[in-house]
């Protein structure tokens, strides 16, 4: 076992970028306010321009299309750009570049023109910022062949997955969760990576599988604690990446427990959980002991008031309630 240190998600992301910049001169960062002393709205890039130079950590104008386009051009020329779209809601300006150029580059060129960009962005939900600064839009990108989608939940995952994303030969959307930046946990030091496309069991259990990712992991773990007190043993499966999707691990877990709850902060209607629930249902139809349940964000613009915002998102109680229903279904 390698040594571990306890850090926050924010520190783990910073360490991943620091190590990537040190490891390979092709890596560079670009985005709004990234350089010191501002070092971004969230300070994920704190200290990196001071250490690696202003030519490796580039401050850009407020120009999301140009940031993405410049990263794409540089990637086509063999660089490994990591660009930040400060808050995911702003990605609309850059979607044309990401979806129509980066995600298509390898395929439409018959493999001649790869485009290894990493898009770092953050879902700001839960902080009272309202409709245009809080969304979880990962389903938009899952729907486009050609771009990977990664959503870490823990400090160790944040570091290991971000390093894999930066060096992945294809475009990756790396979705951070602002509300999780302060979460602390052990992080292996040194050259630690986690391959994309491998789910992780965050809590083992035998009665029901809660399939989730990102912020949902913590609600699911809280729900599992509450359920345990009632004698229901829930497994919490953290997908970690949505594309590629570790369907074998999902099916293995749900095949064992016979019950599944899929939960996420993205809107439930036509959300990531719809796809996952459909896959589970069709692959495990004869073995499921209850219909697959979904607990997602309500189909509403995110409101600003704290009580209203909380009512839109999933929470431990809603997840536990869904899990209880699946356990009670065949009794």
């Amino acid at each position, binding site marked *: 076992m390698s040594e571990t240190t306890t850090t926050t998600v924010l520190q783990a992301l910073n360490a991943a970028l620091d190590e990537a910049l040190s490891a390979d001169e092709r890596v*560079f960062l670009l985005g709004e306010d990234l350089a010191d002393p501002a070092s971004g709205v969230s300070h994920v890039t704190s200290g990196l321009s001071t250490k690696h130079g202003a*030519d490796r950590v580039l401050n*850009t*104008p407020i*120009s*999301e*299309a*140009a940031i*993405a*386009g*410049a*990263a*794409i*051009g*540089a*990637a*086509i*020329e*063999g*660089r490994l*750009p990591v660009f930040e779209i400060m808050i995911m809601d702003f990605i609309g*300006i850059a979607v*044309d*570049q990401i979806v*129509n*150029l980066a995600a*298509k*580059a*390898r*395929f*439409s*060129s*018959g*493999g*001649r*023109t*790869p485009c290894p960009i990493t898009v770092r962005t953050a879902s700001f939900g839960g902080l009272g910022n309202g409709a245009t600064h809080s969304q979880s839009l990962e389903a938009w990108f899952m729907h486009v*062949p*050609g771009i*990977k989608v990664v959503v870490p939940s823990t400090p160790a995952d944040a570091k290991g997955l971000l390093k894999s994303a930066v060096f992945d*030969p*294809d475009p990756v959307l790396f979705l951070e969760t602002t509300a999780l930046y302060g979460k602390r946990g052990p992080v292996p030091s040194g050259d630690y990576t986690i391959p994309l*496309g491998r789910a992780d069991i965050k809590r083992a259990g035998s009665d029901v599988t809660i399939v989730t990712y990102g912020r949902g992991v913590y609600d699911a773990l809280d729900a599992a604690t509450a359920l345990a007190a009632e004698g229901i043993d829930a497994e919490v499966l953290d997908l970690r*990446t949505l*594309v*590629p*999707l*570790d*369907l074998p691990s999902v099916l293995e877990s749900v095949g064992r427990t016979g019950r599944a709850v899929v939960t996420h902060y993205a809107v439930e209607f036509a959300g990531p959980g719809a796809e996952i629930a459909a896959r589970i249902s069709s692959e495990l139809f004869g073995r499921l002991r209850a219909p697959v349940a979904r607990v997602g964000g309500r189909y509403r613009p995110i409101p600003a008031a704290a009580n209203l915002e909380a009512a839109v998102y999933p929470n431990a109680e809603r997840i536990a309630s869904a899990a209880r229903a699946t356990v009670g279904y065949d009794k």
Partner: protein
Amino acid sequence: MTLAQAVDARLRKGIGRGEFMAVIWPSRGQEAVAAGLTAALRPDDRLVTTYRGIHDLVSKGVPLTEVIGEILGRSIGASRGKGGTMHITAPDQGVALTTGIVGAGVPVAAGLALAFKQQGLDRVAAVTFGDGATNTGSFHEGMNLASTWQLPVVFVCQNNLWAEMTPIRDTMNIDQVVDRRLAYGMAGERVDGNDPEAMYRASAAAVERARTGGGPTFLEAVTFRFEGHYFGDQQKYLPAEELAAAREADPIPRYRQKLLDAGVLSEDDLTAIDTDATARVDAALAEVLAAPAPELTELEQDVFVDMEGIPS
């Protein structure tokens, strides 16, 4: 110019008489812009072009079988038929990207140039686009970024006076597209895009500026698009007198006459060039038509390097 015209003409002829199916945006009339620009570029300089890019691709030296093969969707094409007219790349000849989204290539060219600068290379990125593209956000964002960072880019507006089916006078409240550079503190000039020598001189100056650290240049090349927006466009929107005036300025007969008048080439020389271009296009087309359609297994390749966990 002759070769680009020959490819464009042969494709239109073949589609028109049902010899093969293809989707093209004809570049007839704009050949001098491409010829002048690409003559000023080194082979290792990069070009980003658009869906109306047949003349750009041919002028930059992409093999004819790759251009025609891709447009016809054959396995011999630049992207083995997976890209089509609007998505041709040819790294060996320096064509970094063809974009099907108006304006999208502008910031990408800035990124290519950024990579050159980071690597200490004296290479230059050029990007071509129509007048309509200069009304998009990507254009303005990319121009501003390239100028702010003083990147080695040459922005070339192929101003053919029509954006799809709407005239430039209905889509911008300025007389000259070149004025847009002023908002970004960028060098630039307006060029007769039907004069390949003028286009070459302006391009060479812009390329030299970029290559020697002088930053980006914006060129407005004024030209015309004889065949409309897409092949088959009846151009009902185009006044007959405007088309007639444009035909008077057709760059190809005009340049032929200039070469004859200057005694640079004879009628026989010009005929030989035309004959050679036609023969090369016919040979390439024959090779393309003999090539098979792409294998269905192409659908399993190039989505990602590693396809594990990727939906079918």
